[in-house]
């Protein structure tokens, strides 16, 4: 205990504790294990869908053609060799070549990723902009008709299939009112409708989580203290209550973004957005298994990275996770 410990300098930020680094080391190991599992599954799924050599060679191929294809693509080697070949190359960033597009899979995914990311982020932003205020409002007016109304809307949102909502929006906003383009990726307006549809899948969970977190926070002793300090209503709600209520919301929002990125396959189809989801759908149809494998792997890695990001943001928001 040196003199510095007794200094009176205002120092309101504490450093990341060693416990925290340990926590992240553990998370990282788990993340690597998850990625490895996903690789096995992605590989196994494509092999389980039938004899790849036959489907690549096509319906009119002879047995000899199939054997040539099998040799050319290395499908005659034992599965374990094929798997570790793929893993070894994937680790260096080489995800193989697409049979159909005749391009490197990594380039193909890199081309399509911006569309999917833009769509996912648009969806997340719309979801947060809608569900945070709704959740706060419902919590502040707990057990009133307004609260029940919000919960009803959340329930309807959860029950609505996204392709159906997408078609409804296309008919109303797109065709009847002509406000927004209904397909393609030409401008930011093209992302509004699919963003809304994607957001709808996240809004119910985020709203309910915000509401529950706010109700819990507002009933807590530290909010009574904040009121006893004479703080403004805004400071009580947004600084003291929301900060604590937001902790689980942030975690779920990051996970939801992962869902949106992976789950935009349907939406990209409906709105003809040529993102990664669209690519996956095309490739499955064409038995372009290096692309399918790679898309599954990339989305899984992003998903794992987002969960780690959620943990990190949790630690930033909740000092108790940073250790003593």
């Amino acid at each position: 205990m040196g003199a510095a410990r007794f200094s009176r300098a205002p120092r309101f930020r504490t450093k990341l504790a060693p416990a925290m680094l340990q926590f992240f080391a553990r998370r990282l190991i788990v993340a690597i294990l998850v990625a490895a599992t996903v690789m096995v599954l992605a590989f196994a799924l494509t092999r389980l869908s039938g004899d790849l050599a036959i489907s690549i060679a096509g319906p009119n191929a002879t047995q000899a053609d199939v054997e040539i294809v099998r040799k050319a693509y290395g499908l005659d080697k034992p599965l374990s060799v094929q798997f570790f070949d793929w893993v070894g190359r994937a680790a260096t960033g080489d995800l193989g070549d697409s049979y159909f597009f005749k391009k490197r899979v990594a380039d193909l995914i890199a081309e399509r990723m911006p569309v999917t990311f833009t769509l996912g982020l648009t969806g997340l932003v719309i979801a947060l902009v809608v569900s945070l205020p709704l959740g706060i409002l419902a919590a502040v007016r707990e057990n009133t008709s307004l609260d029940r109304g919000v919960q009803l809307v959340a329930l309807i949102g959860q029950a609505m299939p996204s392709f159906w909502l997408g078609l409804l929006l296309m008919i109303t906003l797109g065709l009847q009112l002509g406000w927004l383009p209904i397909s393609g990726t030409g401008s930011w307006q093209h992302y509004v409708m699919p963003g809304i549809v994607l957001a709808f899948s996240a809004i119910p969970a985020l709203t309910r989580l915000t509401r529950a977190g706010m109700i819990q926070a507002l009933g807590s002793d530290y909010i009574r203290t904040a009121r006893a300090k004479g703080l403004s209503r805004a400071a009580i709600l947004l600084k003291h209550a929301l900060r604590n209520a937001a902790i689980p919301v942030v975690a779920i929002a990051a996970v939801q973004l992962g869902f949106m990125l992976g789950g935009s396959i349907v939406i990209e189809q409906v709105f003809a957005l040529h993102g990664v989801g669209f690519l996956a759908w095309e490739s499955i149809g064409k038995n372009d298994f290096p692309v399918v494998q790679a898309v599954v792997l990339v989305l899984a890695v992003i998903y794992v990275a987002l969960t780690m990001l959620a943990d990190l943001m949790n630690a930033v928001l909740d000092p108790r996770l940073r250790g003593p």
Partner: protein
Amino acid sequence: MSALLEVEQLEVSFGRTGAVRGAALTVERGETHCLVGESGCGKSVTALAVMNLLARGARRSARRLAFEGQDLTRLSDQGMAHLRGNAMAMIFQEPMTSLNPAYTVGSQMTEVLRRHKKASQRAATDRAADLLARVGITAPGLRLGQFPHQLSGGLRQRVMIAMALMCDPKLLIADEPTTALDVTVQAQILRLLASLQRDLGLGMLLITHDLGIVARVAHRVSVMYAGEVVESAPTTELFANPRHPYTQGLLRCVPVPGRIKRDQPLGSIPGTVPRIEPGFQGCAFRERCDFADATCAKTIPRHAATADHDFLCRLPA
């Protein structure tokens, strides 16, 4: 000059249940006024009603509820918020959960001064460090940067006390501030409160069910039972000459060295506080009272034993 805090005929109800029924008490400037009584008698609700911190759904009314002569019942929410944490501050029973886990001690302390006195962050930080030292916390600079979970219960209660003092309040309401703490820490916090009260000339409304605390720090005591103040007197007068049977029962429950013989059983008051239904009349203690008779079911007069000692009982003064 009017008293610091005047409460007359305070009524608080939750739905059909009356939690406080016509309570009256007065806190003078620079006085420690203890409010005692068993759990559920309305002590905390009285304090929260004064601060206007009652839970939603509670109804409050009072013939008089005034702070420095200012009628609190007519004050807007905004006006009340400007008094709270400023001229009147409150500390609570639960130090473990009363601080926000997401913010540092420093940020929670400084925001009070910044809100009420428009102080700069730097001035507020200096004031916070001074007060932490004043409440007996070593290394205040270190503590300011720490989060509540890094402090023990006793330290957190000291932080709560220091935070309550940020704006130099005239009235400090302390709701069982030592109940959740270890016995040794209880004594420290109590000594601290007593010395702060004396040095800063605070008016203090101290809520407790511990008569040992009362004997040590109170200038005046009000005894609450079932939402009413049944007896109020200066501390020495109350201990020497308790008039209400409930007060007498409470005092019999406290072992006093020298006055109590070995193997003599400690007193206790049989029964529990009754549920008060709307339209209840008479003395709420009569079911548990040795002296009760039929007249106790009628309206009970308030007697004055001396000029500053009154009690609520049909037994004559």
